[in-house]
């Protein structure tokens, strides 16, 4: 199972890098989404996989009984998913605004902040 997950992470990263090499910002964003999912899986995997019950403590006890899954990586992944979701949603909105404003999603054509003319002068 570990091997399978590791391979999945590898494939996700490979796809992400391929997408992120594109000049199209939307594709870059898709790559970023894949990459952040790969990172989440990585955290999950590095917490070791255990076939256990949910880490919930029964009433009246102070520790869970039996084999339970490691809760910490899951909490970390959940936090990372939440944050990643917020950031990616923001980025999507930003790309959309940029497209409306600059009329392009090609990063090579985005030269408003660093105009070619200003550098060619001198």
């Amino acid at each position, binding site marked *: 199972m570990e091997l399978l997950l590791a391979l999945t992470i590898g494939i996700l990263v490979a796809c992400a890098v391929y997408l*992120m090499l594109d000049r199209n*910002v939307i594709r*870059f*964003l898709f790559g*970023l989404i894949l*990459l*952040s999912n*790969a*990172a*989440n899986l*990585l*955290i999950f*995997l*590095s*917490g*070791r996989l255990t076939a256990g019950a949910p880490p919930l403590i029964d009433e009246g006890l102070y520790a869970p009984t039996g084999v339970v899954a490691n809760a*910490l*990586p899951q909490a*970390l992944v959940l*936090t*990372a998913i939440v*944050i990643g979701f*917020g*950031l*990616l949603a*923001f*980025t999507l909105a*930003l*790309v959309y*605004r*940029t497209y409306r*404003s*600059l009329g392009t999603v090609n*990063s090579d054509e*985005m*030269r*408003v*902040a*660093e105009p070619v003319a*200003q*550098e060619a*002068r*001198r």
Partner: protein
Amino acid sequence: MSWLLVNPILIPLLTAVLAYMFRFNPAGRWISVAGTVALLLASVLMMAEVLEHGVIAAQMSNWQAPFGITLVADYLGAVMVVITAITGLATVIYSLAEIPERLERLGFHALLQVLMAAVCGAFLTGDLFNLYVWFEVMLISSFGLLVLGGSKEQLDGGIKYVTLNLVSTIMFLSGIGLLYGVTGTLNMADLHLAVREVENQGLLTTIAVMFLVAFGVKAALFPLFFWLPASYHTPPVAVSAIFAGLLTKVGVYAMIRTFTLIFDHDVGYTHQIMLWLAVLTMVTGVLGAAAMNDFRRILSFHIISQIGYMILGLALFTPLGLVGAVFYLVHHIIVKANLFFVAGVAKRIAGSTDLARIGGLYAHAPLLAFLFLIPAFSLAGFPPLSGFWAKYVLVKAALDLQMWFVAGVSLAVGLLTIYSMTKIWGAAFWPAHPEGKRPRLGDVPVGERLALMLPIIGLALLTCIIGLFPEPFVQFAETSAAQLLDSTDYVTTVLGVQP
């Protein structure tokens, strides 16, 4: 004790909530000012406690370390929080005159306060994952500030800033995941002990390099800095100034923290890489600055070159090197924010930041010209200003290790810094305005003039004080460097046991 550490995070957060509620009301901006003053007081109180005890720590929610989230303040963390509050106060006052009501209505002050809360959180946390969370809060509020208003330049710069920073974030997250997998803990003090028991040291070095790349992007190290000069000159000046002062320095701080506390197992390898990255960062940054023709873009490239100096101090990994790094960190935040403020005033009265389109500032605004010279000379390293001592300590540290080349490069970079400062002087201050305009400070209404000049004068005064009386500051940096190199105090305070 515990509240001293929570206050610098809680105060700006609550101020943000209030400022957002009153964003349609002039009261909102005064809430923001009051909140920042309170933050400054809280951080000074915390500083006093740190000076007395060395390192202080607090366990959140009463969960003992290493299981809960710990807030820690040592000398470095405490001074960074104080300097954050000072820069924040300067920025808030400056923004009273610069930020139009339209942006205030969009929640400018709330975003600024959240940014400060996140920066303080990053400086105070003792948990690696919590550091990640603060980095994210910082990122999302900085995204908001950067594109607030949504002009074409801002959106263009924003895209580059956001995308590259997100990549670094994911790199950081993966590093955390792997480090947890190898050690089973994320508390930094606990990690300090845990990494020594890791069998596969090669894996640890790989993780260390992942952190180097992740923080390298945040700190704008060569060759990961391209987002910075693409975006820092686009937002309002108040935003540029606090970004220039604080954000990259959070990356540098994180790097100093992790590479002294956690990844000091293979200094010969990791810090060697860092050394050459630092040298290249200095050189490329200053060359970029020399090639630019815009006030703020020159300053943006200078940030990169100065980051090189700080990382150089860390890479040398000697007590003196770290003294230099800490001193440089503090000095640079003050000076760089101040230069951006000056650029903002120049834009306001002369009409642009493009050096070809402004001029006459020396003839018509001599006070501004004088106030430009103080941080500019300090940045270049002229005695007796703060930059001189920062550079002096670093060059001495390099010479002590007989790294002639590195020392030579850092001196040459200083020279090129003067060149580009002269370029600003020779275009914006010395010649007459190309359109025959008379850029006078007196044309700005009194209230706004006060808000614009007060932060500049205050920060310039601070630069002079550090420069003229460097002794206590150097001593402080020495203690701080000693704490960084010998983590016993830090680990004992956090974990509550002798390691």
